[in-house]
């Protein structure tokens, strides 16, 4: 487990980073793993190169239907009862030290796609 979050910190910060770290921790504590892969269909909705720092907004159709939670040892399915399959999400990014950092990731779980 990436407990110090060093890799995550290369791609995200702020609330998005905290959320990802908390999610990792909960999986770890529950002896759970994620298997399969999530799929993304991202569209750039806005870029502001005049802002300081520069910002961008991406709307994504997040497809987690092939990404499942399993028991770390037995590999049996442990998906939560209220799990999602596809939903719209909006990622907010800032340009920081020559790359884009996701600092917020808002989900619209009632909007499928």
């Amino acid at each position: 487990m990436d407990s110090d979050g060093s890799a995550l910190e290369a791609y995200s910060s702020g609330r998005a980073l905290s959320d990802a770290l908390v999610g990792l921790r909960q999986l770890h504590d529950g002896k759970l793993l994620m298997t399969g892969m999530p799929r993304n269909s991202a569209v750039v909705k806005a870029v502001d190169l005049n802002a300081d720092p520069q910002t961008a907004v991406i709307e994504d159709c997040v497809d987690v239907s092939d990404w499942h939670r399993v028991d770390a040892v037995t590999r049996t399915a442990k998906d939560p009862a209220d799990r999602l399959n596809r939903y719209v999400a909006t990622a907010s990014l800032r340009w920081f030290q020559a790359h884009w950092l996701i600092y917020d990731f808002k989900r619209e779980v009632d909007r499928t796609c």
Partner: protein
Amino acid sequence: MLNSPKPARRFAVVASLSAGLLLSSAVTATADEPPDAGANTCSPSVICSHVGTGGSSTSTSGTSQGGGDTGGGGPQLCSYHDTQWACYDPERGYFNSDVGCYFRPLDQQPAEGDKAWEGHKPSEGSVYSKVCPQTAGGQDGLQTQFVSNAAGATPVINLTVQAKLLADRMAFPAPKAGLAPKETAVVKAPVWLWAEGMVAPKPSSLTVPGASVTVTAQLDGMTWDFGQGMTVDCATAGTPYDPVYKDAKSPDCGYEFAAGSGTRKGGVFTGTVTAHWRAHVVITGPQAKTFDIDMPRGSDLALKVAEVQVLN
């Protein structure tokens, strides 16, 4: 505004990291801790429908965890409602024993006007992540809390607790006893006492918005105890003996034995040398204060002292 196909592709890659790859590193996660808290709650948030909506308490009233992991060498534990939690957790942050939640300042604060500011201006404080492991709050996803930096405001991170944590993590060295003469000490003749390896650990600090704690290592003298009341206190670690000093006394830490060690077990004086390390704590901010924590480190020593010098 600008919208061209080329940057779009790059953004798509990064966006997938947010929803997927950020967490798919959890595929390699291994588990070495007991609680099954995660099994009954919905995580990670990217596959859950109710995250962030608050309410909907599904978590078990988990008071069963903790307790068993107080084994030596583990993290320092903080207590809340008879359950113990690590005072610091790399992902969750710093435990607050008053409310039973972990807090840490968001490394990148939300934009002004974001609801996470709870109506405050960024100049008035900071937004912290809040994870409350014993209740639904936090297990169902991330919560945030505005923390005022106004004078007199209650900070969510107890820097006094964190100072002790920082001090415990600093490597205060145990003394390695140096004694001269080592094999040929005699009564009523100078014996040099010094401790090797007494390099103070580097200062350690923690900074949160509007406050900080810094812990600095200081050596507050040594105690050499040879048993039976033969005790020497020195203000310093002592000066290593060198043959060029011949019969001179140590300039800062020496002793002259009044009796030999011949009647003692094994024919030697045995005892301990203690380095009186001190963690000097300086806390700035609303709860500013300064205090010291004793961090003594000791080791055993043995010295043979002959009753009389044999002369031809």
